[in-house]
């Protein structure tokens, strides 16, 4: 098995049925990701980044093309493709520990003994620096802490690929920076294969090995791929004055704001949000697609 084709997204297109005929959100998206690679998907909102992630997660089915992970086709969701959702999506009636436990029990049933499971849960919570609050419920901890638990839950599944859907999008700038540093630290230790969706250019450059820039929808596809060969470990303060860092940053900015200007038409924005994973009231296309 060649490492280069650890995760293969092959000619993926997706159409959502809408009352006005089908809406093609993605057109011929192809991407190969190596084992241990950290890839960011960046693009304007509504360009279908979340849709790509949901297809890899198995939550959506591609209309054409498919996803192959470790020589197996992806047809349904599974814990080998753990997802960190934008709004943490912890079960509010369970403590941080119990939230991770639910995942660990499901994945390691019959493989780990009870004390092993407890150690593993505590290990993962410690990895995201949540050991001090692991018996608190989500409503007792801050937004950043909830997201940390969400990441711990995903890591605890030992996924083949970790999918992150704008994991820090709902956090304030300072907390976001802390979380990014944590993620850099975790990535250095675990070397997971990660696909992260973001619309934060600095976040993308700081964290990624490659940045995949997507064109605007409908029929969105991959515009350019930028390899970020900055040395690791990366330090945000040193990076700030690094000319190479600034070069990558400006490359992404140029793509986003010169080549792919945000469409101003309201209709286009409305129809594009159909393809995005964000909740949108009264959006029948999304409802049907998710069902």
């Amino acid at each position, binding site marked *: 098995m060649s490492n280069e084709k650890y995760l293969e997204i092959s000619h993926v297109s997706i159409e959502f049925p809408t009352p006005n005929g089908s809406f093609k959100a993605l057109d011929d998206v192809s991407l190969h990701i190596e084992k241990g690679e950290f890839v960011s998907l960046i693009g304007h909102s509504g360009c279908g980044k979340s849709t790509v992630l949901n297809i890899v*997660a*198995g*939550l959506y089915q591609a209309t054409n093309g498919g996803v192959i992970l470790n020589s197996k086709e992806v047809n*349904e*969701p*599974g*814990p080998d*493709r*753990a*997802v960190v*959702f934008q*709004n943490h*999506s912890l*079960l*509010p*009636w369970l403590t941080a520990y119990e939230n991770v436990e*639910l*995942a660990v029990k*499901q*994945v390691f049933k019959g493989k780990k003994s009870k004390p092993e499971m407890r150690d593993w849960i505590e290990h993962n919570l410690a990895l995201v620096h949540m050991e001090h609050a692991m018996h608190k*419920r989500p*409503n007792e901890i801050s937004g950043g802490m909830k997201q940390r638990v969400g990441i711990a839950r995903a890591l605890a*599944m030992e996924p083949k690929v970790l999918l992150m859907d704008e994991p820090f999008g709902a956090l304030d700038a300072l907390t976001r920076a802390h979380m990014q540093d944590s993620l850099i630290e975790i990535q250095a230790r675990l070397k997971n294969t990660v696909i992260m969706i973001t619309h934060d250019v600095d976040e993308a450059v700081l964290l990624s090995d490659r940045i995949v820039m997507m064109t605007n929808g409908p029929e969105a596809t991959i515009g350019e791929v930028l390899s970020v060969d900055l040395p690791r470990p990366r330090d945000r303060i040193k990076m700030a004055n690094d000319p190479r860092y600034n070069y990558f940053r400006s490359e992404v900015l140029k793509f986003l704001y010169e080549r792919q200007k945000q469409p101003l038409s309201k209709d286009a924005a409305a129809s594009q949000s159909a393809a995005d994973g964000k*909740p949108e009231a009264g959006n029948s296309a999304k409802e049907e697609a*998710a069902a």
Partner: protein
Amino acid sequence: MNTKVMGLPLLGQMTQPLYKLKTVNWSDVPKQALRKLGVPLISIVLFLVLWDGIAAHIQTSLGKVPGPVQVWDQAVALYHEHEDARKREARFYERQEKRNAEILAKDPNAKVEIYPYTGSPTFFDQIETSIITVMTGFLLASLIAIPIGILCGLSTTIYTALNPIIQTFKPVSPLAWLPIITLIVSAVYVSADPMFSKSFIVSALTVTLCCMWPTIINTTVGVSSIDKDLINVSRVLRLNWLTNVYKIVLPSSIPMMFAGLRVSLGIGWMVLIAAEMLAQNPGLGKFVWDEFQNGSSNSLARIMVAVIAIGLIGYMLDRLMLLLQRVISWDKSATLR
């Protein structure tokens, strides 16, 4: 300061840890006590005064409409009647035992029996019967409604299939169900030595049929409005159907479910009184009807005692459900009214 104990603001503060007591502004305490106890008290007094004033001016075939004082007198009288009946019952059994003991003294092998007391049920006996009946009917309704609600919430097909039936039966009055249930129970529930009386079964089933709908509908809404992300978590984890229901669906729909259960219990209690009146089944409804037929000068006051008792018991049942929700639900922050 958050007072956890209903109607007892001071006690609520006492449950705070001692170190927090320092932060209590004691000058606020009388103000709070006034608001929590004083305001309802004033409104109740105003209501009683208004009642007394209006009642004195209405003349019925049974005399003047009783005011609060006459109603209170009848409440006391009903209590004494209950006590007297209990004493009579005790004496009845005492006499039997004494007689049996005498018989046994003469002939140790004699067969003796204790005959059950057959006095007419008092007001308080009727209350007990009604509460047991409504609880039975309500429990049965919940056992049917919650699973149906969960299925309807999980599957659009099941919901579409059942919705017309639910919506059609929901508004049917208990008075329309009653003859059907009475006839069916009489035909089906035939037993030489029945565990429950027929009237109990009829009343309880009427309650069940009338009060299950709000629970079904609320549970359906609660289940179908689960956060999409939580469903996705369940899908990513590949939880099986039962684990999904138990770990994700049930907890997240508990607040809505309880909203439904409370409405259901309220309806059940109203339905029961009507059913008991119409079917002459033992309970508070029968008490009201008997007093109405009796037509003595005290009847109206006694019916009013029953009305107040019915109201207070309904209120108590609702609080009981709230208490249960507080114990069961994870969402302790929700304001419960």
